[in-house]
């Protein structure tokens, strides 16, 4: 592992989470359901990218309201081949050609309010901070039970504003705004099965290129590039995603989930995602073992090219982002959850997951594929 910053939860964040848990009972009845959850996720791949992501979430339910606060960091060590080969001059001049280390901090707060039986509202706020990126987001949502509580309709809207900078370039400053909406219909299919249909719309307007990424242009079939230009993509992007999902108990101890998502956007990307998951419990719910497989395929953006040419003109839109080209991914994973039945540990729940994610880039010359290992470890405590 390359040099990384030591994971240390900011004292202010810890104080905030503790405050949510301690103060809320003063608002309502003394009896309040409280929950503390800690999670650590590790991502490491064969392209020399490693990310450690510890997070802490606290929530407390008082009367008809539930207050939640979450804080986390991403500790990133990246030296991927496309990052090093396409990095802009300000990044490589004086910087290590082996990549970069960075820390991203995130915090979110949510309030869920149950208006009456079968109706609820949600409000949320989130902030994300990096040395060269800042984002603030707000969200509102609601849900209502229908058809004698055989169905639930949920809707939500969100807005985010982001500032994008560039390291060692104080004059570089861009921004973008994101609007989004979601609709979900959940229906009881039987005593043991639920079905969901969801649609989401996202509108992104503003700077969406990578300020560190340069695109190589070639004269005809020349082996070496004749020049490099900064990555440039359209300012406006409309995203559509529709999901159909089925959840069911297959036997007294076996549960299953299947979902399919169709995604399309105004940049021409069309993607399909299929997820299958099954879990089996032992000794009641003391131990639950699960397995998951996931497949993903996407087509390229209309302006994506494996090799950009200078003739007749340098292209208006150009990108070196492999995630905008044709690609597919395949994931297989296992997870385990352990809930001790013995006092005083019966308020705890331990979880562990391991996934292998293989990514294949069909039209990206510097990197044909990479494989990642994703490990998650979490602990929940019902106080």
């Amino acid at each position, binding site marked *: 592992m390359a040099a990384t910053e030591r994971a240390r939860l900011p004292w202010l964040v810890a104080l905030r989470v503790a405050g949510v848990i301690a103060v809320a009972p003063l608002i309502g009845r003394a009896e309040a359901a409280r929950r503390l959850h800690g*999670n650590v*996720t590790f*991502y490491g791949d064969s392209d020399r990218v490693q990310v450690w*992501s510890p*997070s802490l979430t606290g929530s407390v339910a008082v009367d008809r309201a539930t207050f939640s606060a*979450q804080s986390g960091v991403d500790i990133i060590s990246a030296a991927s081949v496309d990052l090093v080969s396409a990095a802009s001059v300000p990044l490589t001049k004086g910087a290590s050609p082996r990549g970069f280390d960075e820390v991203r901090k*995130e*915090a979110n707060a949510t309030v869920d309010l149950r208006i009456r039986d079968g109706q609820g509202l949600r409000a*949320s706020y*989130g*902030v*994300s901070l*990096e040395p060269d*990126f800042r*984002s*603030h*987001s707000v969200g509102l949502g609601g849900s209502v039970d229908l058809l004698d*509580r*055989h169905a639930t309709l*949920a809707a*939500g809207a969100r807005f985010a504003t*982001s500032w994008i900078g560039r390291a060692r370039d104080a004059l570089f400053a861009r921004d973008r705004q994101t609007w989004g909406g979601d609709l979900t219909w959940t*229906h*009881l*299919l*039987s*005593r043991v099965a639920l*079905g969901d*249909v*969801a649609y989401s719309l996202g509108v992104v307007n503003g700077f969406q290129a*990578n300020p560190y990424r340069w695109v190589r242009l070639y004269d005809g079939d020349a082996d070496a590039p004749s020049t490099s230009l900064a990555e440039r993509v359209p300012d406006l992007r409309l*995203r559509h*995603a*529709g*999901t*159909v999902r*089925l*959840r069911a*108990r297959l036997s007294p101890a076996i*549960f299953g*989930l299947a979902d399919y*998502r*169709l*995604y399309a956007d105004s940049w021409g*990307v069309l*993607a399909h995602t299929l997820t299958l998951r099954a*879990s089996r*419990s032992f000794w009641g*719910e003391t131990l*639950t073992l*699960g397995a998951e497989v996931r497949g*993903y395929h*996407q087509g390229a953006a209309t302006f994506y090219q494996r090799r950009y040419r200078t003739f007749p003109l340098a292209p208006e839109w150009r990108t070196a982002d492999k995630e905008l080209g044709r690609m597919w*991914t395949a994931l297989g994973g296992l997870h385990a959850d352990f809930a001790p039945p013995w006092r005083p540990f019966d308020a705890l729940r331990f979880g562990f997951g391991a*996934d292998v994610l293989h*990514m294949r880039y069909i039209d990206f010359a510097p990197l044909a594929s990479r494989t*990642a290992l*994703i490990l*998650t470890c*979490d602990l929940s405590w019902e106080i």
Partner: protein
Amino acid sequence: MRRVAIDLVLFLLLASLCAACATVQPWQRGVLADRRMQLAPTPERGAARQHVFGVREAAQGGLGGSGSACGCD
């Protein structure tokens, strides 16, 4: 034509879901409230995984609300 075919497939899936619906009395819904029927073993673990997918793939959304954005390009 391709978009029409996609829309038709989605509509048929939705229609088949509704056709399979049954009346479930309140005292028969214990299984539906089970935590193993949730979308993710824990919401926090699901959010962490979705963040990985959101950075590594172009597709996003369709799964409900999300947290804050990031400059994870």
